């Protein structure tokens, strides 16, 4: 085959400060993951279906009163988010296995931390989408006006989701080459997530019922923020050794 004679100018590499390059590469990876997922909707459809079925089954099985809903709302919502999230997180690094795409990314001049951050951002967006579809469904099925404390609720959900995403994305990378990764990921992730889920449940319960956060709940906010900061830092520091062995 004769290669067409295309007049080629020398390829120029952009000279950008490393930090700017880091965020640009992270956003490129996040865009790629979101685009791929929106085209196939493999993880999103499974996650949506799972979350909605659980919410529906609980409402039919228990027909909770307002008091019971107040007690279970935080726990129910975060269990749904955590299990539905596992379906999204499992796909995160697994989608790189087809055609050895992960090798091309690891051999490219992108740091493990930038790759991780890009994947975590994409997972965060996908999981948030599932959560913000679940909330109105929860409101209808359990007869709750969940929008009364919308912004504090959105903040708590964002903090909890980031914790879930960061830990889940690291373990998605760690278990990517295991045959039983669909089973291993939840088994490894949920014990570590206990403080994050506990804090998110405690904070979500009053907010979703339309009650403001009280001062005695501040410790749970601090726990949630500390969890996110500590695990984000650990993940960014350790991901390179998880990816290249």
């Amino acid at each position, binding site marked *: *085959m004769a*290669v067409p004679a295309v007049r080629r100018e020398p*390829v120029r590499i952009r000279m950008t400060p490393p930090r700017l390059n880091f965020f640009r590469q992270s956003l490129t990876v996040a865009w790629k993951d979101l685009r791929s997922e929106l*085209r196939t909707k493999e993880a999103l459809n499974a996650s949506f279906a799972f979350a909605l079925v659980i919410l529906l089954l609980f409402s039919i099985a228990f027909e909770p009163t307002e008091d019971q809903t107040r007690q279970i709302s935080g726990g129910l919502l975060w269990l749904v988010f955590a299990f539905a999230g596992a379906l999204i997180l499992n796909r995160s690094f697994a989608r790189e296995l087809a*055609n*050895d795409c992960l090798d091309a990314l690891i*051999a490219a001049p992108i740091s493990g931390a930038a790759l991780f951050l890009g994947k975590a951002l994409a997972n965060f967006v996908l999981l948030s989408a599932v959560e913000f579809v679940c909330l109105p469904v929860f409101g209808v099925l359990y007869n709750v006006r969940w929008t009364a404390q919308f912004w504090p609720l959105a903040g708590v959900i964002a903090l909890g989701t980031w914790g879930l995403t960061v830990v889940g994305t690291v373990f998605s990378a760690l278990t990517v080459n295991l045959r039983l990764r669909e089973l291993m990921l939840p088994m490894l992730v949920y014990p570590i997530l206990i403080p994050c889920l506990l804090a998110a449940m405690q904070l979500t319960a009053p907010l979703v019922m339309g009650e403001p956060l009280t001062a005695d709940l501040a410790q749970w906010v601090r726990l949630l923020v500390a969890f996110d900061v500590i695990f984000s830092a650990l993940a960014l520091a350790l991901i390179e050794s998880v990816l290249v062995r």
Partner: protein
Amino acid sequence: MNPVEIAGVWKYYGDFPALRDISFNVEPGATMALLGRNGAGKTTLLRILAGLSRPGRGSIRICGADARDRSARLSIGVLGHGISLYEELSAIENLRLFARIYGLEDPERAASEWLERTGLDKVRDGLVREFSRGMRQRLAVARAFLHSPSVLLLDEPFTALDDRAIALLQSLLRDAIAEGRTVVLSTHQLREALQLATHVALLVRGRLAYTGVRTAEMLEEPGWLYRQYGESQSASA
């Protein structure tokens, strides 16, 4: 400074040493054919050169930097067993993605130019999952050459390629060699590899059995190297 410097590299999988004390350099502009039977350690060595795996002992320098340094990874182009392309993205999206990751100044232009070079410009917006095997292979070649790497690492590059992709790859490799780039390729296709190669390294059970310039003797009789330094020879040594 040589573009590829390998010094005392060992690699273990569990207790099994896949590579044993490998040391050699590849000079600028040289084409090194990495030869050896299945399981000799060719792919393991190429993966370490590409920064995909760490050596247990020893060091690898690519253009003077550690194989995992950003500068080393900017200098290498890797074509492995898989095509390393995303099925759900189009041809142009795949190349643009890697052009952005490599930090090319004009990702769109670089991607378009390579689609034209590989004859895929008419299907630039087609999803890779809809491509034929040959089209995917040509796109994979474009991805590996996209950022004009100064060191090309090719693992069995001619295996499973269709005729058109083989011709394209041979033509691009000849251009790359003429431009003074360094190539390290592993292959079982002795005749094709020896025609391209200026140097040869033979691996036998993880050990370097021979390294040196490719001689006329090897070209005339591709099996000569195996007979001289291959399995039976090293076993009796």
